[in-house]
């Protein structure tokens, strides 16, 4: 478990790193503004990017499974260029599996749409099969880990109503309640957002009995090319006591990846140059 103390250590360091670009800050009171900035930091920094992800899934008995994948991201350009910090548009994500060896070359492709359900494909090389996956429900496990698809691609901010519960010295605390509770397994979730960087450091999910059952924590944050980036995170299932740790390495922004890569054609023929 990561204590609050450790978080503070990370963030003191982090504030130093990004003090260059953070303007003198007064507390925000507009919840939408906080939500938009947070969403951008979490999912929309620069216009594209790549990262190598090492995923370790721990079960309650401490047994582990490891997965290694490379994620490429491409954002739909802001049509009028005016959204700025509040940008939130369509995205394409290409996840290429490297390990375990027997799922090597498996690919997940996601087109994140703002106005309709996402489009999702997977390519299974051993069956030589490209398959579309229905994605009405995004709260299913991401390849057996404790993260959900939605945690990886980002939950649409319009699906919840947001309330600013409190503002502490370092954090905004938001309570998010789903507009359609039948589509999700949580009753609400609370986010702790770092005031300077707008990085989500912790999210607690509560069930219908008001019991906390799932927790996300950012364990390390780096400044990469000027972008505050979570480089280690953890999702814990409090019901089973299993958790998953994601470690990001080789994070690069603004890599000028072509949009063509994010098509069915490239599922069978991975774009080596971007994945190296």
């Amino acid at each position, binding site marked *: 478990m990561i204590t609050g103390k450790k978080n503070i250590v990370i963030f003191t360091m982090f504030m130093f790193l990004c003090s260059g670009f953070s303007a003198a800050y007064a507390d925000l009171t507009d919840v939408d503004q906080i939500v938009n900035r947070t969403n951008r930091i979490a999912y929309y920094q620069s216009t594209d990017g790549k990262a190598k992800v090492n995923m370790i899934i721990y*079960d*309650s*008995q401490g*047994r*582990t*499974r490891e997965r290694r994948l490379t994620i490429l991201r491409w954002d739909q350009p802001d049509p009028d260029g005016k959204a700025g910090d509040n940008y939130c548009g369509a995205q394409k994500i290409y996840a290429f599996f490297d*390990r*375990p*060896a*027997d*799922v*090597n070359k*498996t690919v997940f492709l996601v087109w994140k749409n703002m106005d309709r359900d996402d489009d999702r494909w*997977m390519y*299974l*090389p*051993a*069956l030589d*099969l490209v*398959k*579309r*996956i*229905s994605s*009405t*429900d995004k*709260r*299913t*496990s*991401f*390849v*057996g*880990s404790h993260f959900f*698809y939605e945690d990886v691609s980002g939950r649409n901010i319009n699906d919840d109503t947001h309330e600013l519960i409190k503002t502490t010295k370092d954090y905004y605390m938001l309570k998010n309640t789903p507009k359609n509770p*039948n589509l999700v397994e949580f009753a609400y979730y609370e986010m702790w957002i770092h005031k300077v960087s707008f990085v989500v450091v912790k999210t607690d999910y509560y069930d219908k*009995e008001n019991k906390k059952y799932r927790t996300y924590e950012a364990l390390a944050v780096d400044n990469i090319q000027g972008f505050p980036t979570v480089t280690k995170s953890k999702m814990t*299932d409090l*019901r*089973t006591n*299993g958790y998953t740790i994601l470690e990001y390495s080789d994070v690069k922004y603004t890599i000028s990846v072509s949009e063509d890569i994010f098509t069915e054609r490239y599922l069978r023929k991975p774009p080596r140059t971007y994945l*190296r």
Partner: protein
Amino acid sequence: MNIRKKIAAFSINQYKWVTTVIVLLTSVIILMAALPSIFPEKFPYLNSLRVDTDPENMLPANEHVRILHNNMKKVLQLYDMVVVGIVNEDHPDGVFNTKTLNNIYELTKFAKTLHWTENGEEKGVVEVDLIAPSTVDNIEQGGLGVVKFEWLMSTPPKTREEAIAVREKALKIPFLNGTLVSEDGKALAIYIPLTHKDLSYRVYSALKQKVAEFDGDEYHITGLPVAEDTFGVEMFIQMAVSAPAAMVVIFILMLIFFRKLILIISPMIVAMVSVIITMGTLVISGFPVHIMSSMIPIFIMPIAVLDSIHIISEFFELYQQTRSRKLTMIKVMDELFTPMLYTSLTSAAGFASLALTPIPPVQVFGLFIALGIMLAWILTIIFIPAYVMFLKPETLEKFGAVHIPGKEETLTITGKFMARVSKVTYRYAKVILTVAVLLVIFSIYGMSLININDNPVKWFTPSHPIRVADRVLNKHFGGTYMAYLALSARDEHFDRRSFARTFRTNAERRITSLDFREAASVFNEVINLIAKSAMTASSSKEVYQNAMDFINKKLDTTSDAFAEAWDEVSLFVEEEKQKNQIFKNPKVLDYISNLQNALLDTHVVGKSNSLADIVKTVHRELFEGKPDHYSIPATSKAVAQCMISYQSSHRPNDLWHFVTPDYRKSSIWVQLKSGDNKDMSAVVDSIEKYIASNPPPIPLKIEWFGLTYINVVWQQKMVSGMLEAFAGSFLVVFLMMTVLFRSALWGILSMLPLTITIGSIYGTVGIIGKDYDMPVAVLSSMTLGLAVDFAIHFLARSRQMYLSLHSWENTVPVIFSEPARAIGRNIIVIAVGFLPLLLAPLTPYKTVGALLAAILLVSGAGTLLLLPALMKVLEKPLFRSKPVAGQCCNCVACVVSSVTLVVLIALTLDSFAQVSWSTLTWFVVITVPVMALGCGLLSRREKCKILTNEEVI
């Protein structure tokens, strides 16, 4: 004055002291047992009352199957389950109507809340593993080329179409069909996993309350943990009822026999104190009260009053002759001391022999009853005389039989009946013997038909809700009895040379498939590294680790030209390493499917679920749901990719109930329609045969676990253990009888009635088709100790009386007056005393009650008919030889008892010290002649020629 008289005189003279000591001792025991149970925090050093209702504890904790069971449960995260079945036979759509599904949704939500935090530990329902329509995933086609994972029933349906759709979807998923939904759509089952089995009664009660709110459907709650836990709870209620009921019955019977309330209170006190001290000692010494030990009071109670009845009977006969309490009591005690000692010793030995069974609760049960019996004996000989002294002479004024010389005695009903029996035995001795022989033949035939079987659910009477649920649900579903077939990889033998050779061959094959030049040199570098490392490493894991460390170092430093080659070799090494993940191997998965078919062929298994089913289902849905793709894909990579697809669901962890994350252990979840041990055994046998003729494609360890199977294991141990215990106690009792009568012939004679009794009872059990189950098994060795009582009293008295009457013809009427009457009273008291058990709602108690009554009646009859008939026929050999002086003076008796003793020692060594039978045979072969020689010498001593009547019983 001999020791017998001395003891009686002591307790008569010191009667106040004796009573005070008994009262004090009893109080101390009560306090020591009760205080820590009521205030556990104040008495941390004392053991408190612990209750154990878990039949698993019939096996010692270190028993292989229990270790395996617990280990597999842990590694596969399996839990014992409560099953709730919902049945609707009336609605045209069965349970798949909006109202019922709404109720089921509601019930599932309720079941999820049934967990509590106790001592910082989360206990109760395991929410994430609950199997219900709203908690399981459906995988299906979501339009052209689209595969869809979604909750089977995320919200309760609003229309008939939606309700029926739930059924249609579930029936298409092999894992759910026959498990969650019945094929006819009339029934649906929810599987509620529990963290701890002993919470099932609590969960059961909560669910029962909840389903009472719903109407229109039948709700049934079952599952082996529920049956076992409920049995435990009801058993204690039962004990609170049966033991006092037995007490009341015995009290009433004694009142009828002796008509003196004040006098018959004393045996009740003896019985109560024996029970309290025994149970108190059980608690104090830290043993849990188990299903078996809860029956201790009801066994001690009737046995404890036996000796008192003899004393009071005799006192009743003699009191009016002297009208002195003291003199009468001393005379009575002198006469009865030895038979009472022997009957107590034999009963105790019978129960104590249960310690020879390999089942801990049965051992505790046997030993504590033996303790209780000896305690009752001590109490009888010291407390009954003391008690009599408390009575004022006036109260005994009209007590007892008045014998007026010269006047024909008016006989009681028992008296008249006994007189008639005595004539019958004398006149029709040969007829009785013929009947006995026929009975033996009948018994042997009957015993050959005995059906060894047990089923904890059948411990309830057929009308009990758990039995009803069991019947209904097993009609609709694959089965509510769970067993698991564990398959594990055998530890690989690390052969350095062949390991390096195989790696080289596979690597060289890979090189040829790669089309860039750098590959060959990089691969060869790794091949050489591995060949070298294999020579020093201790496992393949270590070799791979060395190789990967080397490759990763290279990957960090290499130039771009070689990077791809190093990537390839890294992938290759990882692939080789993964080859030990045998449960991704398609051949192994196909073998699992074949095993499942073999399971279905037994017709006891209604359904089984496995890793192979999951892979096949995913494979089918990936290929448009076409039935011909319901198969294991061809390569282990394809299997792995099906599994990773499956894990993109709401319940990724379901996979880990079927295989461990290292893919080295797997298990098949087997649902049986019957929990009968014989059915489980049949499945075990046929799978063993299947495996013998169809060995797995790679070596696998295949073992059973699960509650249904554990029951089979302890039953098998029980049966063989009981046989050994029976043999042991038979020999002990026989040895005691030979010693008591100083004659092997008399010893054999005393064993005959009970042998025929036990034979005929078990013969009857076989013929009427009653299953030989736990209670029936336990009864065998303990009835032995009880039934020999009658023979001891009968034979000891006969021999004593023959000395003065000189012929059997003269002895018969006398023996059938007082001694036979006391025996008759005893038979009735014990047999009837056990009868309240028949009122119990739990069948094991009923069985014990009925069988004990039957055994006592038959052995009583055997004693009173067979023994006199035999004695008439064998009068000469029995009474020919003059009684001998010492134990070792009868050569035959000495040899027989020596041999018995040797065999007994051998038997004990076998069951406790695990000495092999060949060693034991040598032991027997050597010791027997030595002892025979010893006996020969001893019996020819000078001392043996002197005969004194004093020394004879």
